[in-house]
């Protein structure tokens, strides 16, 4: 391949210095044969660049993931898991099908606990300089022996969030919190995790459950 022709290709690659670029472009203008070569190459490249990018269908990646080799679980582990495995919360949240079951159980447990009382959120006086608000939360569960508030503000500790029972069967707690967004759930009798029915909204917890959201704005 002669020198000029090489330069044409380098020009197409965009790898020429400004001087060399100027040089070859001038040569192209001056030499009809080189011009024809160049036009031909440009046509070729244009044809290539006319190619559209094909898109991949939505099922592609999930199909790949399904076909990946799986680590085999020994049978003994499976059996042990069935009999002795920890149940996640009070219901099996391990499948999508359970979504409606979750709703059902919440309704059922909600009826059981008669959580018809509102959760009071009282913004108390703000201590000057700390911007901490004291928030009261309540949950109606007359049949429960113990209710706790567990959330990201107390490292999800059942012990730290122990609530007090009032005569009418509602359980309450007052929590000092700085402005921000908090996730929490109520825990009944140390093991039943329940979303607060009166929360302003809910977010997934990464394990298939819904945490209640508490948002505290600064004044």
């Amino acid at each position, binding site marked *: 391949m002669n020198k000029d022709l090489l330069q044409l290709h380098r020009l197409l690659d965009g790898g020429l210095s400004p001087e060399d670029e100027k040089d070859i472009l001038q040569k192209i203008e001056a030499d009809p044969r080189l011009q024809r070569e160049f036009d031909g190459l440009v046509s070729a490249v244009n044809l290539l660049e006319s190619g559209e990018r094909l898109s991949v269908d*939505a099922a592609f990646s*999930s199909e790949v993931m399904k076909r990946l080799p799986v680590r085999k679980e020994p049978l003994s582990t499976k059996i042990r*898991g069935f009999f002795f*495995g*920890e*149940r*996640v*919360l009070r219901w099996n*949240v391990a499948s*999508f099908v*359970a*979504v*409606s079951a*979750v*709703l059902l159980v*919440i*309704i*059922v447990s*909600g*009826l059981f*606990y*008669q*959580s*018809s*009382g*509102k*959760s*009071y*959120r*009282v*913004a108390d006086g703000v201590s000057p300089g700390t911007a901490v*608000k004291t928030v009261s939360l309540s949950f109606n569960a007359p049949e429960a022996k113990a209710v706790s508030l*567990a959330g*990201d503000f107390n*490292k*999800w*500790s*059942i012990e730290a969030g122990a609530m007090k029972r009032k005569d009418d069967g509602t359980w309450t707690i007052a929590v000092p919190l700085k402005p921000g967004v908090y996730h929490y759930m109520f825990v009944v009798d140390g*093991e039943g*995790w329940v*979303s*607060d*029915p*009166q*929360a*302003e*909204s*809910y*977010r*997934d*917890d*990464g*394990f*298939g*459950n*819904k945490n209640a959201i*508490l*948002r*505290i*704005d600064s004044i």
Partner: protein
Amino acid sequence: MKIKMILVILGLLLVYGISGAEPRDLVEIRTAIEKSSLPGEGKITLFKRASEAVGTGIPASDVAVIIKRGVSRGTDGKALEETLGAAITAKEKGLPIRPVLDRIEQGLAKGVPPERIAAATKQLVVKLSTADAIVSNLGKSGLKSGEQSEKGPAVHTVARALEKSIPEDAINKLGRKSIAKGASLSRLSATIDTMAFFVEMGMNLDQASGLIMKAMDKGYSEGEMFMMQKEMSDMMRGKSNINDIMKNMDTMMNSGTMGSGAMGGKGMGGASTSPGTQGACGSGMGGMGGGHRH
């Protein structure tokens, strides 16, 4: 007992080696492991991992909570070690550590199987590192961020969106739009959070994108973005049809009655829904963090 001696020695090394860590937490860690039903070898490796975690700067109080809850299960400790390993990785990479610790503590408290906690934690760390790259790139492309402290929560929000299968492209698109509008990182964060919320509630990507883009065009503030989430939750209590809800949201936005600022910026008054709606906690859709594939 030999194991006890080793743990005591490691514990002493830990106490002397790490300044700033409360001795009480370290003692708790050691005691919890000693008292557990883990095999001897397992106790040593778990203790080493816990020490490593504290050594990288993860608060000892969190490690103590994780260890105490983790060993009370009587599992073989491997999953717990892996979980702490993921937290160590996150800390070493400078990723926000609070969301990682929160996920672990939450899973352990809620009785999630340890292997699942390990997997979910590792997954979160991966998403956080992708999110970190995305946020850094947006910063380089001109996204304003106020204080340094805004970055961590923003990275967490992006990671959560990625967990909901919102594509990187969609997030970058929102980022570029924010840059063009001169919006800040914290407002973009609220935008992405709201988009992830919509997807969690059952909208597909197009529906969620459409609403979000509209909100951005209207220049919604952070507070107004969060107001959209609240409005949607309220609507979920009544209706279960996502398309109806979408139409409502759209109408409210067009007429300007959404997030009009009347309630924006205030805390929660006791203005909850009427009694007797105990069942409809708004958890009808979404289920596990599967998100929506489009």
